[in-house]
């Protein structure tokens, strides 16, 4: 296949705007997948992804399409749709020449879409605007078209009308991909230069890396080098991605392919890295590579202390296909032995917890997440802190710095006030206010990263009724007045519940955490005192009264089944509790601080 008939494209869409359904339609029409095999949302093959409705890990798929008497190869690169994975998105975009911009005609453009769209425009991608879900009665095609025209400056007639549900517009989209997206312009005879945009772990074959070849040709058996990690391998197998992998003798410039080379762990394959030949290397690596750094840290402990070694084994296996997960052993007085883990963000943390549960049957307790702080001691030492317990005593502490981000929020103008109020409450400082269209505004704030971690995104969605999306980039450290807040259960401090928070928020947060814990910790045969404290000072207190009675009045023929199920559920719940001192604490209570508004 010559480059002139290759089209590489990705899809930019907000969650629920119908990306996956439309992608399925493309696969169907190009006969890439058998009608019978078409599980809803083919591209998301982890169960978890399908349930969460988010494509977590990018995938790629090659379609063959005959158009105007010519054969085309269309490479669709799927992109994750969450800020936790924005670096991966940028690499996927960098592998393409074009993008389908899918907008739900009932919802209009969302902020997430805009930040990814900007990324695509930065990389000079040709944008094909698509108005989706036109089959719905509440579609507002004209209004949404105005937004699209305003945003990308296209002609109204360039916008394709589509419906993933009915199949409307699918042929037109395929034609536009062939007609409008430029062909790749690499030199297949130049030294090899291929960018890794994703990798997956296969338990039989090891790591499979996906790449886009900018220049050169990769052949089976080639000796190749990964430039950033500076490691060399032999290409055991190369090929392209259909619904399954299709081995080829070579993959050439302009195309999307995979390589299997006996790599065992994901950490050896870094998204954004450049693959070249050992013998005839390219002169420089592809721009834009970044080491992915964890943003959020939390303790992960087995519910049953005996499962520590099993948990270690499970985490090691998870790390094989998720290099962004980092962990090291730590111990807690309350929880025993566990791990301090670093995650890309909160969604990533949730996903890891769920994968541990589903794929490894490991029930874990996750402790209050925190960002990484820098503590400066009076002696001039500089300590990186990943756990509140590492904060030096106040008499030895000079000052603390915390990471800040630049947050970009796009919302409808009517929600500007509410969004600003939230951001200011979260210690944000307004940097810029920019009207994208008459009724859409982009707000730029500088905020502490820690404030994003604690229930920011959910509240943003609530106050804007879903009409706000946001994106963020780290901008460095700033000095902050932080204190360590401890939680005491019946007078005993529970280290796993401590959190570093801003002094101004301490009283309010302490009270709310105690109230939330009261809700989450079941009553026991004795009274439980819940206290929040800073140093020796108690700032909030709640009491869980003793349980006096736990028995059903009636248990006759018809009640037995129902009652048994209820008690079985209680027993299940008990398995997810951890005894801290004399108190049984459920798994979710350790994350109470994240759920203060629910």
């Amino acid at each position, binding site marked *: 296949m010559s480059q002139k008939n290759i089209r590489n494209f990705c899809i930019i869409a907000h969650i629920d705007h119908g990306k996956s359904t439309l992608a399925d339609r493309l696969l169907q029409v190009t006969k890439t997948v058998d009608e019978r095999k078409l599980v809803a949302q083919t591209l998301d093959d982890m169960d978890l992804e399908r349930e969460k409705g988010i494509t977590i890990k990018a995938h790629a798929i090659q379609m063959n399409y005959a158009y105007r008497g010519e054969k085309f190869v269309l490479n669709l690169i799927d992109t994750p749709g969450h800020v936790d994975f924005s670096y991966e998105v940028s690499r996927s975009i960098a592998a393409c020449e074009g993008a389908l911009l899918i907008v739900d005609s009932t919802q209009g453009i969302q902020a997430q879409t805009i930040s990814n769209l900007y990324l695509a425009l930065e990389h000079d991608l040709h944008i094909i605007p698509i108005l989706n879900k036109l089959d719905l009665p509440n579609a507002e095609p004209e209004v949404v078209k105005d937004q699209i025209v305003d945003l990308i400056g296209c002609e109204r007639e360039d916008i394709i009308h589509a419906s993933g549900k009915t199949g409307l517009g699918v042929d037109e989209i395929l034609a536009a991909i062939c007609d409008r997206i430029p062909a790749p312009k690499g030199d297949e005879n130049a030294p090899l230069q291929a960018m890794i945009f994703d990798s997956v772990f296969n338990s039989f074959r090891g790591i499979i890396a996906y790449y886009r070849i900018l220049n050169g040709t990769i052949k089976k058996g080639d000796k190749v080098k990964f430039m950033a990690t500076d490691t060399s391998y032999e290409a055991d197998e190369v090929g392209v991605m259909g619904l399954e992998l299709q081995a080829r003798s070579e993959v050439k410039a302009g195309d999307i392919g995979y390589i299997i080379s006996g790599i065992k762990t994901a950490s050896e394959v870094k998204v954004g890295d450049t693959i070249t030949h050992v013998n005839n290397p390219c002169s420089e690596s592809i721009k834009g590579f970044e080491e992915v750094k964890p943003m959020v840290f939390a303790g992960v402990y087995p519910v049953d202390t005996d499962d520590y070694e099993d948990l270690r084994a499970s985490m090691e296996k998870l790390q094989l296909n998720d290099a962004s997960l980092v962990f090291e052993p730590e111990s807690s007085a309350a929880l025993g032995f566990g791990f301090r883990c670093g995650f890309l963000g909160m969604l990533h943390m949730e996903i890891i917890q769920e994968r541990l549960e589903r794929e490894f049957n490991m029930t874990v307790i996750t402790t209050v997440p925190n960002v990484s702080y820098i503590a400066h001691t009076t002696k001039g030492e500089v300590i990186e802190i990943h756990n509140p317990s590492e904060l030096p005593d106040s008499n030895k502490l000079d000052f603390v710095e915390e990471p800040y981000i630049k947050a970009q929020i796009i919302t409808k103008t009517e929600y500007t006030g509410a969004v600003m109020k939230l951001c200011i409450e979260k210690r944000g400082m307004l940097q810029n206010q920019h009207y994208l269209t008459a009724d859409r505004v982009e707000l730029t704030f500088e905020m502490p990263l820690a404030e994003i971690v604690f229930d920011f995104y959910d509240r943003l969605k609530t106050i804007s009724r879903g009409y706000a999306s946001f994106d963020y980039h780290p901008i460095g450290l700033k000095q902050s007045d932080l204190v360590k807040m401890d939680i005491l259960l019946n007078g005993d401090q529970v280290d796993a519940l401590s959190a570093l928070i801003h002094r101004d928020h301490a009283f309010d947060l302490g009270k709310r955490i105690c109230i939330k814990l009261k809700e989450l910790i079941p009553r026991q*045969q004795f009274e439980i005192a819940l206290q929040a404290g800073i140093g020796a000072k108690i700032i909030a207190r709640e009491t869980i009264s003793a*349980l*006096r*009675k*736990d*028995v*059903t*009045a*009636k*248990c*006759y*023929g*018809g009640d*037995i*089944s129902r*009652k*048994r199920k209820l*008690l*079985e559920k*209680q*027993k*299940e719940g*008990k*398995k997810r509790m951890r005894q801290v001192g004399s108190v049984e604490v459920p798994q979710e209570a350790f994350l109470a601080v994240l759920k203060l508004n629910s």
Partner: protein
Amino acid sequence: MAGIYIHIPFCKQACHYCDFHFSTTLHARSELVDALVIELDQRKHDAHDEPVRTIYFGGGTPSLLSGDELKKIMDRVFDTQVVISPAEITLEANPDDLSKNKIKELREAGINRLSIGIQSFRDEDLKWMNRAHLAHQADYAVKAAQDAGFENITIDLIYSIPSLSMNDWRDNLKKAIELNVPHISAYSLTIEPKTVFGHRKAKGLLTPTDESISQDQFLAMVDLFAEAGLLQYEVSNFSKPGLESRHNSSYWKGELYIGIGPSAHSFDGKNRRWNISNNQQYMRGIQRGEPMFEQEILTKEMRYNEYIMTGLRTIWGVELNYLRDHFGVDLNDLYPKEISYWKEEGKMIEKEGVMRLTPKGFLFADRIASDLFIVS
């Protein structure tokens, strides 16, 4: 041994606390009785040749049935099953239905045990719960039944009623004892979601009685009844020795029972099934020979859990040998920590191979049972 439960799904009016299946539209009564009779025919082999030892008419309000209707059902039970003599044949009755004439009809139909829904001896409580009778009718009904020769009588009481003080409750208990009935069931008021009380609670118009008051009322009751020679043989059931409800006890002892009528539950030793809770659909299904029920096939683990749950609610407790023989479980080995905790709390005792709860332990029967459950 088998038991037969027959559900009569009609009431004159709905009590505010009740979430059992019933209808206040009474005109379909005779049609329903016909369906009950057909179901008895259809299920004549469900006792698997075990003789029937108890028959129980529950509801709803079975005392709404006429003597003829009752007799029709009873005859069909005797036609389709081997009923041992004397069987325990119970009927739930509301005091306002128990005229002298009615009582006579019931005796003639073969009822030998009456369960009278008194609930409280205070009109204030009866009105609040939307009961159909007044306090004086309860007294009268019990005495009339005793005069007519009913010896085996049980009455129902309810406590933890918000307006019922400790003294009011003691008065109720004393009145109950004075009636000199051999059996009393007393239930802590439970606010069920789909009831009038449930709605009031959801709207914040009803605050359930404080647990510590419920606990005190429970313990006071246990003491007073013990003095009167009424033995607590189950969490909510008290009787003179030997006069426990044989029918209800069979639920707790895992014995076989056949439930006839809409919403009635059956158990054949391995599986539980329950008829649809809708009179019209039930009748239509039965008439077409397509009984409408759902069932649950019990695993060994579920059977173990049920044995623990029901056993711990009774004075007979759970037998350690039974657990070993039937489930391969040594309870003390499986849950040493939990068992020693509940023993130290004075809520559980082990004696002669039986693990059972003390009256204080009965108050935590659910929690203790779930502690000893097996879920994998």
